[in-house]
C-alpha cells in the first residue's frame, strides 16, 4: 500500500501507511475533543440570560396584573439556549452515556431489557398524554379502562385477587405493601413492631420497613444462598409483623421453601411481603399467589419494559392477597354497570367494604408507565410472556455454564434470570471486582451489578435478559473469559487499576465529591446582566 492512490479529483482514496516511529494515537488535541467524543461545557458556561429558544406571542400590556406585592424583582440567573444550541448540547451529552440501545447492559436486579418503541408511541397518543388527572370521570373513561385492564393482567399473571396501582416505583410499592400489612394487623387488634428482612435484600426493603415505623431485623442466608428457614422460624413470635423476601432472590435463586416460609409466617400471625423486582424470571409461568405471598410490588420499569430513563420514572403496583385486599390506598378504580370511576373518598370506599389506609401521592399513579406496560403485555400475550421468562432464565444459565470454569459462581445449581459471581477467582491477582468491572467498560460493556448483594465478597450479579441474541451473549462471555485470563496472568494488574481509559472520563474521585460537596454551579462573579 502506498497511500498515494488518487481519484480523478486528486483526492486520496487510501489511508497513509503509519511510519514506524510515530505513535498516531498520542497526538495532542487542540480542542480536547477526540473525534466523536466531544467535550461539552455546562449550560451555565455558554448559555446567556437574554437568549431564548422559545418564541411566544407578545404579552398584552393593557392587562393589569394581580400579583399584589409578590412580583419577582430579582434576577433568577437562568441561562437560555437557542434551539440549535440546545439540541447540540443534549445530543453531545447523550453521547457520553451507555444505554441498552448501545450494548449489552447486564446490570443484575435491574432487568435492562429492550424497550419497545411501540410503547413510546402509545404513551404519546393525544388521548392519553393530554388528559388531566382531575377531569370529570365521564371524560376519561378510556384512561380508566386502560388502568383497569392493566390491573386485570397483573392480577391474572400473579394469581392475586387485588392490586393497588398508585405506587410510583418499587420502593414506593414496598411502602404500600407494608402499610397494607400494618393496617390489616392493627385492624385485627394485633399491632406488631418488627419486620424481618433477608440479609440479601435490596436496601430499599429495610429502609421501607423503617419508614413504616417498624424495627428491622435481618434473617441470615444459608450457604446455598437462600433464606435460613430455621433461623426465620426461631425468630418468629408475637412481635413480628412481616417478613420481606425477594423471590427469585438477589442471588439469582428461587426460594424453594417459600411455601413453608409463608405457612410458618401465617401460623405465627405474620404476613409475607415479596419484593417482586425479579418477576421477570417467572412471569407467565409461576404465580406468586400460588406461593403464599400476601403482598408483592411489581417494577413495571423492569419486567414490563418501561424505560429507566437514566434513573426513572418507574411504577410499582402492588398485588394483594385476600387477607390484604381491603387495605388499599386511595384512590382506586371502580367498574360498575359498564362505567368506570375513581373512588377518592374514604367514606365511599368504606361503604363498599374497603378499609383504605390513606393516600400515597397526589392523583392516581404513573399513567405514562401504565400505557407502556400494557402495550408490552398485549404485544407478548400469555405465550410471549412465558417465552420471556424462559429465555431470560435460559440466557442466565447459559452465561453461568460457559463462565463456570473461569469465574467463581457463588451458588451451585440452576439460577433464575441472573447469576451471581464473587471475587474468589480474582484472589491474589491484585484485581478487584471494581477493576474488573471498569475493564469491561473499555471492552464496550456496561458492568454487571457489583458489590450487591452483600452476602458474598465482591459480588458480580449478571442479568443478561431475554432480549440478547446468542451471538451477543457469546461475545460477552468470550470477553469475560479473556478478561479473567488477563487478570489471572499476573501481567495486567496495573492496566486493570487504570481502566477505563477509552471513556469520556476516567475513574472519578468520589471521595473528593463527598468530602467537599459541590452540588451546583455557582457564578464566579455575581450575575451582571439583568433579565429583560
Amino acid at each position, binding site marked *: 500500500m502506498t497511500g498515494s492512490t488518487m481519484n480523478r479529483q486528486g483526492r486520496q482514496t487510501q489511508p497513509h501507511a503509519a511510519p514506524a516511529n510515530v505513535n498516531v494515537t498520542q497526538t495532542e488535541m487542540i480542542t480536547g475533543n477526540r473525534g466523536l467524543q466531544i467535550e461539552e461545557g455546562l449550560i451555565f458556561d455558554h448559555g446567556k440570560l437574554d437568549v431564548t429558544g422559545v418564541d411566544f406571542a407578545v404579552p398584552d400590556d393593557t392587562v393589569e396584573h394581580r400579583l399584589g406585592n409578590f*412580583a*419577582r424583582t430579582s434576577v433568577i440567573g437562568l441561562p437560555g439556549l437557542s434551539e440549535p444550541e440546545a439540541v447540540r448540547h443534549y445530543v453531545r451529552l447523550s453521547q457520553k452515556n451507555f444505554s441498552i*440501545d448501545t450494548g449489552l447492559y447486564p446490570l443484575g436486579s435491574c432487568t435492562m431489557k429492550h424497550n419497545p418503541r411501540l410503547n413510546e408511541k402509545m404513551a404519546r397518543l393525544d388521548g392519553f398524554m393530554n388528559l388531566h388527572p382531575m377531569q370529570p370521570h365521564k371524560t376519561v373513561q378510556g384512561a380508566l379502562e386502560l388502568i383497569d385492564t392493566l390491573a386485570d393482567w397483573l392480577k391474572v399473571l400473579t394469581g392475586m385477587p387485588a392490586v393497588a396501582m398508585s405506587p410510583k416505583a418499587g420502593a414506593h410499592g414496598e411502602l404500600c405493601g407494608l402499610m397494607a400489612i400494618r393496617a390489616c394487623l392493627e385492624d385485627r387488634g394485633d399491632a406488631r413492631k418488627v419486620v424481618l428482612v433477608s440479609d440479601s435484600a435490596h436496601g430499599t426493603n429495610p429502609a421501607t420497613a423503617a419508614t413504616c415505623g417498624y424495627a428491622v431485623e435481618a434473617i441470615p442466608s444459608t450457604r446455598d444462598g437462600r433464606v435460613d428457614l430455621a433461623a426465620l422460624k426461631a425468630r418468629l413470635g408475637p412481635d413480628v409483623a412481616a417478613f420481606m423476601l425477594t423471590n427469585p432472590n438477589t442471588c439469582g435463586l428461587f426460594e424453594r421453601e417459600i411455601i413453608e416460609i409463608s405457612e410458618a409466617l401465617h401460623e405465627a400471625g405474620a404476613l409475607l411481603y415479596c419484593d417482586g423486582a425479579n418477576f421477570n424470571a417467572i412471569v407467565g409461568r409461576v404465580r406468586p399467589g400460588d406461593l403464599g405471598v400476601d403482598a408483592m410490588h411489581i417494577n413495571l420499569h423492569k419486567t414490563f419494559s418501561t424505560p429507566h430513563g437514566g434513573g426513572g420514572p418507574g411504577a410499582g403496583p402492588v398485588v394483594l392477597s385476600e387477607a390484604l385486599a381491603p387495605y388499599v390506598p386511595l384512590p382506586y378504580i371502580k367498574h360498575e354497570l359498564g362505567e368506570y370511576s375513581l373512588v377518592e373518598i374514604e367514606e365511599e370506599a368504606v361503604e363498599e367494604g374497603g378499609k383504605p389506609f390513606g393516600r400515597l401521592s397526589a392523583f392516581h399513579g404513573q399513567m405514562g408507565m401504565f400505557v407502556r406496560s400494557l402495550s408490552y403485555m398485549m404485544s407478548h400475550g400469555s405465550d410471549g410472556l412465558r417465552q420471556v421468562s424462559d429465555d431470560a432464565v435460559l440466557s442466565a444459565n447459559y452465561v453461568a455454564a460457559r463462565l463456570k470454569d473461569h469465574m467463581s459462581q457463588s451458588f451451585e445449581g440452576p439460577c433464575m434470570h441472573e447469576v451471581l459471581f464473587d471475587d474468589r477467582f480474582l484472589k491474589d491477582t491484585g484485581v478487584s471486582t471494581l477493576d474488573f468491572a471498569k475493564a469491561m467498560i473499555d471492552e464496550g460493556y456496561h458492568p454487571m451489578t457489583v458489590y450487591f448483594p452483600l452476602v458474598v465478597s465482591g459480588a458480580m450479579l449478571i442479568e443478561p435478559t431475554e432480549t440478547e441474541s446468542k451471538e451477543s451473549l457469546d461475545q460477552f462471555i468470550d470477553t469475560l473469559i479473556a478478561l479473567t485470563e488477563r487478570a489471572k496472568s499476573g501481567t495486567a494488574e496495573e492496566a486493570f487499576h487504570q481502566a477505563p481509559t477509552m471513556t469520556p472520563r476516567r475513574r472519578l474521585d468520589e471521595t473528593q465529591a463527598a468530602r467537599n460537596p459541590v452540588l451546583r454551579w455557582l457564578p464566579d462573579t455575581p450575575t451582571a446582566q439583568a433579565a429583560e
Partner: protein
Amino acid sequence: MRYLPLTDPDRSAMLQAVGVASIDDLFVDVPQAARGVKFDDLPRFASELSVERQLTHMANKNMRAGSSPFFIGAGAYWHHVPASVDHLIQRSEFLTSYTPYQPEISQGTLQVLFEFQTQVAMLTGMEVANASMYDGSTAAAEAVKMAMRITRRSRVVLSGSLHPHYRDTIVTNEAHTDSELELCPHDMRGSEDLCSMIDDKTAAIVVQTPSVFGGLIDLEKAARTAHEKGALLIVVVTEIVSLGAVRSPGEMGADIVVAEGQSLGNGLNFGGPYVGLFATRQKYVRQMPGRVCGETVDADGKRGYVLTLSTREQHIRREKATSNICTNSGLCALAFSIHLSLLGEKGLRKLAILNHQSAVKLANALCEIDQVELVTPNFFNEFTIALPKNAHRIANALADRDVLCGVRASRLFPECPGIGRYLIVAATEMNTDEDRDAFVRALKEVLR
C-alpha cells in the same frame, strides 16, 4: 415474537451447553404446587398494528385537553412543550440507561442532573437541590420527615393552603411515626394566621404558594416567626412556572422548598409520571432524601460528575437511610431541564407573564357575570370563584357543553360542608380568547 432474538436452534444449543434436556429443568426449585399454570384467560401475542388499534380505541374514548376549552389545574397544568424536548428525551442514551452507577459511562445523565440541580436551586431561591423525587406530593412528605430529623421535634403544622392530596400524602406517610400533625382548616382567602401556629415544639410549618385555591401567600412573617422558634418553613409550589413571575420561596425565607415540576417539559399524562423538586440550604444537605449529583475530577484531573453523599441512602445505610427512595424521576427531570434551558431567564419570564395575563383576563370576564365572585384577589395562573349555584352541577353542565371549566372545591375537600359553590380555575398560555369567551358564554347559559 418480535422482541425475542433467540431462535429455536439457539435455544437447543444453549440448553445443551447448560447440560439440561428442557427449560423446565431450570425451574426445578419452583414448588410442585406452583408449576404447570396455564394463563388461558389472557390473549396471545399480538402484532404492532393490532396493539396500536386496541390502545388507540381506548385513547379515543377520552376528552383530551385542547380538544375543547380547558381550564383544569389543581396541581397539574396544561402547558406547551417545545418539540425539541420530547425529541431529545427520546435519545436512546438518555431513555434506555439506568441510574448512573458507573460514572465513566454516564457523564451525560450526570451532567444533566448537575444542571438540573442548579436550575432548581436558582428557581426556588435555595442553595442546593437533589436529583428529583417521584412528584411534588411525595417530596412534601419527605420534607416533613427531614425537618423532624433536623429539629429533632415532632410537631408539624399543615397550612390550609395545602393541596389536600399533598396533605393526605403527608398524613399517610406519618401514620406510623411519633409525629404530631396539626391540620389547619382550608384557607381559601389566605387569611390564616400562620405565626400563631408556631411554637417552640414545632418542627416545621408547611405552606403552599400559590395555594391550592390559587392565591399568593405571604411567607415572610411566618419564616421569621419559625426561625425565632427554631422551626423550619417548608414551602410547597405546585405550579413551578409561577416562579417566573413571583418572588421565590427562598427570598421569603424558606428552609426547604418542594415543588411539582410537571409544568416544564412534562405532559399532563393523567397524573404521572411527574417530577418532584426538592431544594434546601447547603447546611442541611446531609439530611436530604434522594440522589444527589456532585462535581469532582477524574484520574486526569478533568471536571466530571458522580452520584455523591450516598451514605444517606438506602443502598448503604439500609434502615437508617434518610429515605427509602431509589428510582426517582430521571427522565422527567431531563425534560424539565431541557425545557428550562430553552426558555432561559427571558423565556420563563415571558411564559409566566402570558400565564398570568391569561388568568387575569379570564377572572375579569367571569366576574362580570352576575353573582360570580372572585375569592382570591392575588393569584398567578389559577384562582377560585364563588358561583351562585352548586359547582358540581355547573361543572358537569359545562362539560356537556365541552368546556372543562376547572376543579370544584368539593372534589378536593369532600369533608367540608359549605364549599359546594366554589370552583378552582386555571388558565395558561394554552388558552385563547375564544376559549375564554366560550367559558364565559357557557357559564352564562348554565346560570340562566
